[in-house]
């Protein structure tokens, strides 16, 4: 486990509040704007950053994140540039954990060992690789753990009690509970079902449980944050980027600011989660 991730969740526990985990697509809409967004996230209220590695065929993503990945690729983003972006971010921020999220093929083609070395050097704390279930742990999960990089697994509504121990076995950092079956950006499941699922997972693990897929507003973040240790917001942030672009999908003066404003609101939401629940 990386120290940065553990320290962050320990601090959140101390503060008695859930964390805000923000997803942004690296290189969307271009390298410089994306780096500027990344730099603004901690001050805006992000506790953990998930940085998307764009892939041409994002099979588990909805239209908003698909479009963000394609914008990034068209603007010339590569895995190498994503790592460079993390390295630049680390020059001024050493305490916000960064989790790279994406699909396996770009890493496989980069070369697993080289990638893990470069990622560690850049200051990456964890990986979420959508198409690597526990059955394929020897590919990347075990080498990542050996390289002191968290491998964060998705648990889903289809992960029953029988399967859960297998999913949790080599998971580290936190558990990412996908609150619904489906692609990113769909409708959120009922909040009581989410709470039940979070508590079910917590019976099997000491790790923090973060909930995502379908969280779009500060209000939802607040409600989900009552039971979860972290609330993940992705599609809404990516959509905020998209909404500010000009007709040629280029960044405008509003792009970075729109993300910061949205994240600020979401951060207020998660900070209110336990206060209100305690009243």
């Amino acid at each position, binding site marked *: 486990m990386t120290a940065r991730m553990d320290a962050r969740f320990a601090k959140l526990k101390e503060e008695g509040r859930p964390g805000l985990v923000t997803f942004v697509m690296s290189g969307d809409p271009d390298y410089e704007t994306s780096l500027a967004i990344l730099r603004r996230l901690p001050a805006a209220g992000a506790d953990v950053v998930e940085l998307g590695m764009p*892939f*041409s*065929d*994002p*099979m*588990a*993503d*909805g239209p908003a994140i*698909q479009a963000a990945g394609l914008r990034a*690729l068209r603007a010339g983003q*590569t*895995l*190498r540039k994503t790592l460079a972006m993390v390295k630049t971010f680390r020059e001024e921020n050493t305490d916000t954990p960064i989790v790279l999220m994406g*699909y*396996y*093929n*770009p*890493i*496989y*083609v*980069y070369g697993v060992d080289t990638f893990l070395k470069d990622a560690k050097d850049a200051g990456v704390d964890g990986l979420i690789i*959508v*198409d*690597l*279930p*526990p*059955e*394929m742990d020897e590919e990347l999960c075990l080498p990542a753990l050996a390289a002191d990089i968290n491998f964060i*697994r*998705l*648990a*889903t*509504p*289809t*992960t*029953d009690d029988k*399967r859960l121990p297998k*999913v949790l076995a080599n998971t580290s950092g936190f558990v990412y509970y*996908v609150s619904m*079956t*489906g*692609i990113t950006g*769909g409708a959120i499941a009922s909040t009581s079902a989410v709470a039940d699922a979070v508590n079910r997972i917590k019976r099997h693990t000491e790790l923090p449980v973060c909930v995502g897929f379908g969280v779009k507003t500060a209000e939802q973040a607040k409600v989900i944050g009552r039971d979860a240790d972290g609330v993940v917001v992705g599609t809404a942030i990516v959509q905020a980027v998209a909404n500010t672009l000009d007709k040629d999908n280029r960044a405008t003066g509003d792009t970075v600011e729109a993300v910061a404003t949205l994240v600020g609101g979401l951060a207020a939401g998660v900070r209110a989660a336990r206060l209100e629940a305690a009243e």
Partner: protein
Amino acid sequence: MNKPVEPNSFRTGPDEQGMFGIFGGRFVAETLMPLILDLQAHWEEAKNDPAFKAELENLNTHYTGRPSPLYFAERLTEHLGGAKIYFKRDELNHTGSHKINNCLGQIILARRMGKTRIIAETGAGQHGVASATVSARFGLPCHVYMGATDVERQAPNVFRMKLLGAEVTPVTSGHGTLKDAMNEALRDWVTNVDDTYYLIGTAAGPHPYPEMVRDFQSVIGTETKEQMMAMEGRLPDMIVAAVGGGSNAIGLFHPFLDDKDVQIVGVEAGGKGLEGDEHCASLTAGSPGVLHGNRTYLLQDGDGQIKDGHSISAGLDYPGIGPEHSWLKESGRCEYVPIMDAEALEAFQLLCRLEGIIPALEPSHALAEVIKRAPKMGKDQIIVMNLCGRGDKDVFTVGKILGHEL
């Protein structure tokens, strides 16, 4: 590349993890993992159940019209002046291609699993039509994802699917071809996990699909062996098939893999040539990668981004290939070669005139390779080619290229 030690048998794969050597596997989202394990358990049970086998054989005989004939192409053989050429005529199957073999097997399995909704991806539309057909036959709703480009160039098949009661969704992401349709089908499956069965059309995707589709298609090779023995009293010297995803090819090849005297040739879509990006020759010009649930040869760039291929034939227009073909290539058991659009088009026309058969553009690629090889072989030698689909669906495409207003 170092060649691995030759195995005792080429027919034992995949292993329990679904691997053919380093190829294959189960690279899917966690949401789908329980579904794939469930599918595997049902498949293991079904394939050893005599009742399942009997139901499939009955449908193969009376619904599809199996066995398909093994036909001696006398005039083509004379024209080329070399090896005797036989066609395995899977284009005579109900729905016009080999795709029905797999669809019948999978829909019986879907029913055993209690699934009530069928989804499928399609390129040329042959698998979509076959899926819509078996769904109609068993009264299940069917939703077909098809790239928008393919919807346009295969309009007759889109209408066929609609006649058969299927809903067809054009997919606009990427180039709007087969790979994009498969992405969208996977997105549907990951959303509708409870009632939906994903009927994959080729011998690719996460384990157990490559094995399962191969086993359903192996009826092609098994029949060919029996028919060849009856007609010639021996096995052929060479078998040839087109490979897109590779299901018709693996169906013909698999029963012959351990017959070491039988030379095996798979023919990929060379498109407009291998120099640029306008081809679909993943084995000849691609490299190993992970896409759509399996590791296999892919067309991709240095950053691991998947390229959109090109072929005159929508059915071969896929940047990947079934994982077992990747393994058969690396193990050296099978040879894979590209055929260009123009060569396939020539072969297509030649067969129309010499044998009175309008082939699909997919097997026209295999035919073009046969045309190259047969004259160099002796008259006592035998080639079997899988004529896996008929060309009715391609008449408009070919007409357009040849400058005929239809």
